[in-house]
């Protein structure tokens, strides 16, 4: 009994710091902008709004930033060096083919979306990372699924890049 209690207490003491540790956000704020479409990209008008909303939701989930602010929001000059802005463009969209997908398979006829984005520091507009995302989904799926996958990929790449940058700095 005593041994079990002792083991439990040790375990608690050992895990307590990890539980209590609240990771400090690396950046005070981040602003995501609506991604415009390159010439020839035919997507529904609601797509940009949805991608923007998904991107903001994913950035909030990432917990790397103190605050995810709205587009064109005023930021204090003092906070600008610790604030990021994500800008990007939807460079390519192929709507795919259900027939090719059904007859050939193996990735043929898939719906695809390419997005290029940059995360820049607000104060000096210095590019911190360049993000290239290529999403492929079934042509039967809604285009909003692509927006979700694209947003997830963008935030994952951003997270990895910022983490490696922080490691290199320390």
């Amino acid at each position, binding site marked *: 009994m005593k041994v079990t209690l002792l083991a439990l207490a040790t375990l608690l003491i050992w895990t307590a710091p990890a539980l209590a540790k609240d990771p400090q956000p690396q950046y005070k704020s981040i602003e995501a902008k609506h991604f415009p479409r390159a010439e020839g990209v035919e997507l529904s008008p609601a797509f940009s709004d949805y991608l923007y909303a998904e991107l903001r939701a994913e950035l909030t989930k990432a917990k790397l930033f103190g605050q995810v602010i709205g587009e064109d*929001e005023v930021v204090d000059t003092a906070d600008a060096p610790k604030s990021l802005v994500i800008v990007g463009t939807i460079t390519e969209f192929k709507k795919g083919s259900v027939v090719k997908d059904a007859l050939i398979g193996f990735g043929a006829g898939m719906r695809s979306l390419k997005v290029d984005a940059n995360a820049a520091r607000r104060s000096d507009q210095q590019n911190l990372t360049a993000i290239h995302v290529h999403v492929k989904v079934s042509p039967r799926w809604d285009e909003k699924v692509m927006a979700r996958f694209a947003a997830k990929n963008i935030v994952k790449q951003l997270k990895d890049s910022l983490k490696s940058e922080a490691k290199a700095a320390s």
Partner: protein
Amino acid sequence: MSFGRGGSMKWCVLIICSLLAANARAEDPKPTPENTIHVQLAEAVKPQTFSRPLKFFLVDVVDRSGSAQPMMVFKPRGGIFLDRTPTEITRAGLETCLKSADMLAKDRDSADFLLTVYLFHFGLSDSFADFFGKVEFAVALKNPKTKKSQQISASGTSIAGVAVRKKNIQKNVQEDIENAFGDALRNLLRGVKLRDAITALDVPADVPEAPAQPAAAGAAPAATEKPR
């Protein structure tokens, strides 16, 4: 009354039509206390500060959504309704935010700027397997002294997860719309567009009022079309 071959056919058609009509009427949801949600700002948005203390007066909130049922935000599963019209919710939200920062003028005469809100969208938008809340409006900002005005747009979005139970759907929809509404107000009150418009329209307090101009020259933009 004939019950011959032609007669029975007519009766069949009549019965089918009446059944279809009854079915269609039953599918149209009606607001009840159980399916009505109360949307309000969780926390007042603090507006940005300007070079001098300014007072705003909210003249009107105009619904330009073109929706026949602006209070119905979700149609399936018996529907979800707002307890107030979107214009009332927007007015209350905007006034709360301005009041919290002591920027709400008591009347039109004491205001530095007059605001007229044109509401284009309030509620849920088309989405895939989740709730996509969207609030979109334009604000005509008018300086009553110079009679000059500018229009600025603001929008807010939010995404909430799906739910199976009706109670949870209602909760998620309510949270989603509240978040989108808060986001839209934040976009307006803390946005660069408002700051730029104020900078362009604001004049020092000691400048005399401009003489009366013809109505068409200084009138606020019609805002009949959605800005983009």
